């Protein structure tokens, strides 16, 4: 009887998917993405769009935190760079949106080299600290150069025309974001099974051992940081398009924390976990609102006397609850469920 789900050959490791069931799930997910624009109302469509944008950012952070074991608190900063990296060339200079998307990745990637070179030689929390600092400095720089960034007034962003396809309706935007999400997932999966990806895992699990195996820690950490920032930058650009307006106010520092919370809730180190985490955290305020309005007028009356803060408390409790009770996150829950399903009524 099999006791767990192990990969036994290199070929299995290199394969993009594990099994037919997994392929079936992917097919279902793709089908769902394709039909969603026809089925969902604008509100749900927007909600799912936002979840997908957040998931792109989450996958980006997952490359750094989940795979390489480095903590970043600079998500906000790189998203801002990505958003402006897109908005300035496309809206101010009139460049093609494709070039904008490329810059939205390249600008944060370049910035991550600047931040990464001095800070990646240090272990532990130091990257968290320098990225935290860089997030604040980026916001400051945006405000300091109004000639380029329009300062605090921000830049309006139109929905783009990509390769002749004009993204116009909410349905179009949904499709655009879905394409980016699928591309990001594919890209990330491919990175994971490459030499670089294996080196990242080695660094995360035992950096001394990785060093002995010939992995140059600083270089590979830098690769992870650059790759992560590129993807996070893309999510920033998508977020800017979603908001139709790019300002530093649109990217509060809280996003950095939410991004980490997302990985934890979803399950560290797994792409599906990052996606699930995004779905969960973006959906949470909506669900709480629904619960509140289910209580009808009495709850609505409470709104004016500050009970809205209950939501904030709830949000914190969910994060702590997951950390305490389900450290593997939603993916862990899913795997447990799977195991029970396969093995029941046996325990092992």
């Amino acid at each position, binding site marked *: 009887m099999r006791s767990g789900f192990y990969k036994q050959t290199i070929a299995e490791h290199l394969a993009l998917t594990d099994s037919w069931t997994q392929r079936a799930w992917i097919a279902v997910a793709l089908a769902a993405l394709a039909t969603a624009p026809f089925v969902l109302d*604008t509100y749900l469509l*927007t909600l799912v769009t936002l979840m997908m944008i957040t998931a792109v950012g989450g996958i980006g952070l997952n490359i750094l935190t989940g795979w390489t074991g480095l903590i970043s608190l600079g998500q906000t900063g790189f998203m801002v760079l990505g958003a402006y990296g897109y908005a300035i060339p496309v809206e101010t200079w009139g460049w093609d949106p494709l070039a904008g998307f490329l810059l939205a990745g390249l600008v944060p990637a370049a910035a991550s080299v600047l931040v990464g070179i001095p800070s990646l030689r240090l272990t532990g929390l130091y990257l968290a600290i320098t990225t935290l600092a860089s997030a604040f400095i980026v916001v400051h720089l945006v405000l300091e150069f109004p000639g380029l960034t329009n300062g605090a007034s921000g830049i*309006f962003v139109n*929905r783009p025309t990509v390769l002749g396809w004009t993204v116009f309706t909410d349905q179009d935007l949904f499709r655009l974001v879905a394409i980016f999400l699928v591309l990001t997932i594919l890209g990330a999966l491919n990175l994971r099974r490459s030499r670089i990806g294996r080196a990242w895992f080695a660094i995360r699990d035992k950096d001394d051992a990785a060093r002995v195996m010939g992995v140059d820690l600083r270089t590979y950490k830098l690769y992870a940081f650059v790759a992560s920032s590129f993807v996070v930058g893309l999510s920033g650009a998508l977020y800017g398009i*979603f908001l139709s307006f790019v300002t530093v106010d*649109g990217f509060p520092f809280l996003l950095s924390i939410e991004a980490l919370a997302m990985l934890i809730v979803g399950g560290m180190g797994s792409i599906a976990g990052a996606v699930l985490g995004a779905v969960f955290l973006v959906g949470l305020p*909506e669900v709480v609102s629904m619960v509140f309005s289910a209580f009808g007028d009495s709850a609505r009356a409470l709104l*004016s006397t*500050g009970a809205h803060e209950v*939501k904030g408390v709830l949000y914190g409790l969910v994060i702590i609850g997951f950390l305490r009770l389900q450290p593997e996150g939603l993916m862990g829950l899913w795997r447990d469920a799977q195991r029970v399903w396969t093995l029941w009524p046996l325990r092992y």
Partner: protein
Amino acid sequence: MKSWKGAALLAAALAAPAMAADQGVTDTEILLGEVEPLTGPPGLLGIAHNLGVRLALAEANAAGGVGGRTLKLVAEDDGYVTSRTIQSLRKLIGVDKVFALTAVSGSGQAVASIPVLKQSGIPTMIPIGPLPPLYEPPMDNVFVVGQSYTEGMHQLALFLAEKHPGAKWGVITQDDDYGAALREGIEQAKGEAQIEVAFETRYARGQKDFSSEMLRVKDAGVEVLIAGGIISENIAMVKEAEKLGITPAIATFWPGRVPEVLKAIGPASDGIYAVDYVAPIQSDAGQAFLELARKHLTEDEVARVNRYTMTGYTSTRLLIAAMQTCAEDLTWACTNQALADGPAVDTGVMAPAAFAGGRFTNSPVTIMQADYETLSYAPVD
């Protein structure tokens, strides 16, 4: 402003299918919606505003509602986060299917919402953060109640220039669109009066310590200080001035014109100037307003009434008046038209407000001065 073209196009393309004009209206009810920061420090503004809207609705419902239908409100909290504003808007329009919007959060949030508002065509009141992009060029369905920060600052600056001729000015503003609007107002005033700015600076939003700024104010010998903060920042600046022993004429702006600020500053708040387009609570009109509030709100809620309650109340009264005009044909088109053309509504707490064919009430402002004794503001003569 080239980006506007696209947005306009978008609106044109989508206006047609969005004409399910009487959504939110049943035989017995009319559902209204708003997005507000109800949590976090900005909740000070959002909650007070929400009370004003509910006051107007309660008053209208007590008088029989609109065409016999009861008015109900769905308030969404965005916590002052722009993405959630947009999210909430789509929910209100798409899921709750409200008939009209009574507010779209703060100024930055409202500006970012323009494409969504234009796309849907829903009648929308903007009683908070009246920035010019919201009414220039005017949109069919977006109605801005109040006065722009720029014009308010312009009037305040002209007043101070006349009152303190030849004085040295200091200007401290926030590094965002609000601060930019204030700076523009001063620029405008400079063209009409003699203003000499001896010290000017911007601070980062959320800054708490203003000691170096105020030292520079002192060093520059500033006699007229524009404290362009919102709430905490103004408190910090005035207390710092008190500490340094300088007594310039200090002018603040309406977002922070709440009695709590005076209380938090202490006696040094006596005599600071403020500008606003709604009446102080202690005025006769203000007291009458409180009386009305006591009738429809709980005691707890009355304690949270401030100037935002008045603006929220006035703008909702305008909306209700328009809806009453259209009671027989409660559609967006009719309501938008009625709002634009309707007669002025006089709530007592603001100058009679009307859009007169436009999309902006352009309400006149009053200069007032704080009295610490009574924790109140009174118009200057």
